[in-house]
């Protein structure tokens, strides 16, 4: 007996290397099930209605009104005109695609790198991805002008004999965004299957039994199913990781292949990926900080999780600061007078100089506060910074798009850009769609991947004493 005790002790890593359990207090697996299904199975809380009603109003009333007005009248109802032909539609498209990226990064890339802490936040982040891509995908479809011809973008045989032109990055975008939507939905849905089966087995009403049962596809949790499932999940996360790097790169190429100063930069694909992930981490924090409190998930999404997301945000912020630096450096070093003009005007121009400063200060400088541990533990401060990051990244896209367009090569055609109420309404509408879908997700589906969280508890490890192993590694 004494022998085993010493053996066990020698296996314990030194104190500074030891990590606390991801689910503290050694909760039982049954507690996890009850706690994590409490929200979809319980009564609808009041905060949910308070948020849902305005969000649903924006989604069901504001957005359709704007779209009907836009489609029946024409894109002239937006602020877009020459020379600023890309306005809020493309700004918001890039912004929404960006928001989506962190979800895939958290769920797929952190899965591949075996970061177990992702299990608690992966599902919520993936849902964010799916809904944000939906909002993003709306914009390219409606900004083509004659929306009823949007299907010409797909390679469908037409009586005109025309085909899409695959040399254009805008064409690649069509494929990239649609692929991103389908792959991230598949990935999200596949992660949900075991939990849907759990919900089905716990369901009390016939409707719930039927719906959860239908979408659980008949999951039994057998080892042979898990075997295929885990392989498919691995393959899907590998593919989704590829998309993290491709989708925003292609969005960046939409800009970089043009001849416009401020857009014609080789750094753009990487720039857009980094910016997208950065903005997405901001949105993850905005969503998770209130949710963990309102859904009583403090023991699952711990301060350590928040701390790590803050550190990732800090890293992305440093990358952004570096890219901004390189952009300004190249604008000077290239010797191109047009580049120097555009970048000078970003900070000291006639219009929109505030955008350039917001972009530098909020995206490059403000998140540097996350170096301080006290800040990474102050939820209110993190929430404020995260909201500001989203705003800062919106202004970054505004500065890149409008700031480069409004003064083109012919000074006679210079014209500032002002958004119209339809621009604002459409954006508010997509925000409504996003939050409506997110709230429905929070209400009816488990926002934590229950089976994944269970799998990382010591009780689930057959080689751990709590998992029933004799001796073994503690």
């Amino acid at each position, binding site marked *: 007996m004494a022998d085993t005790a010493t053996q066990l002790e020698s296996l314990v890593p030194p104190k500074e290397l030891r990590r606390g359990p991801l689910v503290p207090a050694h909760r039982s697996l049954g507690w996890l099930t009850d706690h994590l299904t409490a929200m979809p199975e319980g009564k609808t809380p009041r905060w949910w209605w308070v948020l849902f009603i305005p969000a649903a109003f924006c989604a069901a009333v504001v957005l359709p009104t704007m779209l009907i007005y836009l489609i029946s009248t024409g894109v002239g109802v937006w602020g877009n005109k020459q020379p600023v032909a890309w306005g809020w539609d493309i700004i918001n498209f890039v912004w929404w695609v960006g928001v989506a990226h962190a979800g895939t990064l958290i769920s797929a890339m952190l899965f591949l790198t075996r970061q177990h802490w992702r299990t608690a936040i992966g599902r919520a982040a993936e849902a964010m991805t799916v809904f944000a891509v939906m909002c993003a995908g709306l914009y390219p479809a409606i900004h083509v002008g004659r929306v009823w011809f949007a299907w010409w973008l797909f390679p469908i045989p037409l009586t005109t004999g025309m085909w899409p032109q695959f*040399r254009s990055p805008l064409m690649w975008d069509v494929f990239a965004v649609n*692929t991103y939507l389908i792959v991230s939905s598949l990935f999200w849905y596949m992660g949900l299957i*075991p939990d849907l089966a759990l919900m089905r087995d716990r369901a009390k009403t016939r409707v719930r039994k039927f719906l959860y049962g239908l979408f659980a596809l008949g999951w*039994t949790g*057998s080892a042979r199913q898990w075997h*295929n499932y885990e392989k498919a999940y691995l*393959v899907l996360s590998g593919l989704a990781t590829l998309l993290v790097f491709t989708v925003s790169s292609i969005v960046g190429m939409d800009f970089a292949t043009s001849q416009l100063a401020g857009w014609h930069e080789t750094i753009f694909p990487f720039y857009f990926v980094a910016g997208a992930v950065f903005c997405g981490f901001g949105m993850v924090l905005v969503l998770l900080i209130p949710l963990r409190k309102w859904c009583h998930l403090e023991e699952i999404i711990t301060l350590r999780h928040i701390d790590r997301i803050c550190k990732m945000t800090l890293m992305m912020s440093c990358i952004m600061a570096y890219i901004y630096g390189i952009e300004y450096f190249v604008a000077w070093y290239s010797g191109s007078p047009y580049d120097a003009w555009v970048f000078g005007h970003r900070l000291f121009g006639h219009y929109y100089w505030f955008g350039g400063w917001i972009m530098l200060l909020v995206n490059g400088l403000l998140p540097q506060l996350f170096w301080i541990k006290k800040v990474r533990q102050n939820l209110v401060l993190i929430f404020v910074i995260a909201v500001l990051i989203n705003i800062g990244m919106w202004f970054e896209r505004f500065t890149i798009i409008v700031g480069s367009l409004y003064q083109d090569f012919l000074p006679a055609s210079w014209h500032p850009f002002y958004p119209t109420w339809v621009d604002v309404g459409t954006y508010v509408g997509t925000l409504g769609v996003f939050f409506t879908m997110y709230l429905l997700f929070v209400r009816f589906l488990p926002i934590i991947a229950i089976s*994944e969280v269970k799998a990382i508890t010591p009780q*689930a490890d057959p080689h751990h004493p709590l998992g029933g192993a004799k001796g073994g590694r503690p």
Partner: protein
Amino acid sequence: MNPRPYGLIAEFDSPAAVLRAAEKVRDAGFRRWDVFSPFPVHGLDKVMGLKNSLVGWFALVFGGGAFIGSMLMIWYMNDYDYPVLVGGKPMFSPPQALVPSYILLVLAAAVGAFVGMVALNRFPRLHHPLFQNNRFAMV
């Protein structure tokens, strides 16, 4: 008349116990058996003697097919059937066709992985004899 039993089922309270039991069942020579758990049990596929899942092959075949298919599609559309000269660029060049083909590879491979998972697990199977067992809800 009693219906023929679907099978025998036993309940274990820890993953290690399941693992040890699975070893014994395997050594006893049973072939049509399975282990049910609310989470994947580490090492169980090895103990059960499961071979590498075929899902990866599904993804490879779907993805590879889509890549070759879309390269051919772009060549057919932009070079053969409806050539349009844009900026003196070649009608078809692999580097430019690579990007959309690569995207379609990812799309098809992901669909392939999902289809593979569904097909190999014989989904959708909305009713299973095991669901009649009340204690089965635990997994």
